[in-house]
Structures are given as C-alpha cells and as structure tokens.
C-alpha cells in the first residue's frame, strides 16, 4: 500500500465556499501532483510540484491553487467553489530524478458543489 493520504474522501458543499483538499505522503517523495478526474474518465493534470516552494500549473486550466511548504504536504485550495468544480481530485507522488513515471496515488477526494 502506498503511503499517500487524501482528506476528505467525500465533500458536499455549497457554491461560493472556500475548500482545501489535503494530501500528505510519508515516502519522502519530492514530486507531487494533483489530477482532476470525472467519474470513469481520463486524468487531467492540474498542478504539480518538484519540491518545497515549487509549484506549476498543469495542462488543464484550473481555478484552484496549491502550495508546497513542506515536502510531505501538498494541499489544493478552491477559494470559491462552483458546480463546475464537481469532480474527483487525485493526488500522487513519485521520487524526483527517476523520471520513470511510476506514481503513487491517494484514494481521491470526491467533491460535489451544489
């Protein structure tokens, strides 16, 4: 089992609320990622980080923001949630320098915005 944890697993909130999805890993991985996935659909990279104080936007435009203050922690924040943000958000990590693509995923946070 991968040591990467996401909370909450499920969240239902109203429009306009601020939310933060938490992601933590205990493997000492430098690279961390956030993907957005509609149910049963492909993954879209929205943010990634190669280490502390490093954050980059992914291929899919997103209104969310991320931070990387500690190696093990990579939270994603939506300042004002909208129904279009309803989706599943997957966090992943891997060792820096490997470039072999073997990612470890959390179990996901399923967000529903009413």
């Amino acid at each position, binding site marked *: 089992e*991968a040591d990467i944890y*996401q909370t909450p697993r499920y969240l239902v909130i109203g429009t306009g609320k601020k939310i933060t999805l938490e992601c933590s890993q205990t493997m000492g991985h430098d690279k961390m990622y956030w993907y957005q996935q509609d149910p*049963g*659909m*492909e*993954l879209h*990279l929205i943010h*990634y980080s190669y280490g502390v104080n490093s954050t980059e936007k*992914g*291929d899919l435009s997103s209104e969310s923001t991320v931070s990387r203050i500690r190696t093990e922690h990579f939270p994603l924040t939506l300042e004002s949630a909208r129904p279009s943000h309803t989706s599943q958000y*997957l966090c*992943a990590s891997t060792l820096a320098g490997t*470039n*072999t*693509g*073997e*990612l*470890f*995923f*959390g*179990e*996901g946070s*399923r967000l529903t915005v009413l």
Partner: protein
Amino acid sequence: AQSVAQPEDQVNVAEGNPLTVKCTYSVSGNPYLFWYVQYPNRGLQFLLKYITGDNLVKGSYGFEAEFNKSQTSFHLKKPSALVSDSALYFCAVRDIAPNYQLIWGAGTKLIIKP
C-alpha cells in the same frame, strides 16, 4: 505531440478466459509506457511499465503487457480473468523532455462476468 489511445471504452470477458485491453501510442523517440488500474472509488495503482528490454513485461496481479514497436502498441493481457479484475484500466506514456509528465489514455472499463 505525444499521445496514447485506448480504442475500447469497455471490454467484457467471461471469468477464466484470457483478456486483452488495447493501447496504442505516438511518441518521439523511445517510449516509456505504463498501465495503471483503478478500482471503484479508489485511486490508481501502478501495474507495470516498459522502458527497455524484453517486449513482454510482467506486472502485478498476474497481468502482463506486450510492447510492439512496429504497431506502436502496448496491450495489457492476462491468461485467465478473475471477477476481481473488473476495474478501470489506464494506459499512459511519458512525455518527452523536459516535461516528463505522464500522458493518459481515456481508460477502458474491464468487466469480468462469472
């Protein structure tokens, strides 16, 4: 541009029969190819990868994949399907330098019937 395609949205197989989930790719240079599995309401799990060497790659849970350079394919296979193999399967290819992000297929739903 690098890309990966999974031509089948869904594959249905009877338990005990062999299964194949198809994947084709388009990359510049030598491909780094991956298969991941996603069980319901879970994150993705790494199954296997091809970087170099033998064209037949063995992975977790009895799965294997065959790399075919001339057909630019990387099909996932298993000699005898189990009901517990029912899940969503994703093929991915590593992007070229300096990006190195994974490019994901749309996924194939595998249904194994008793």
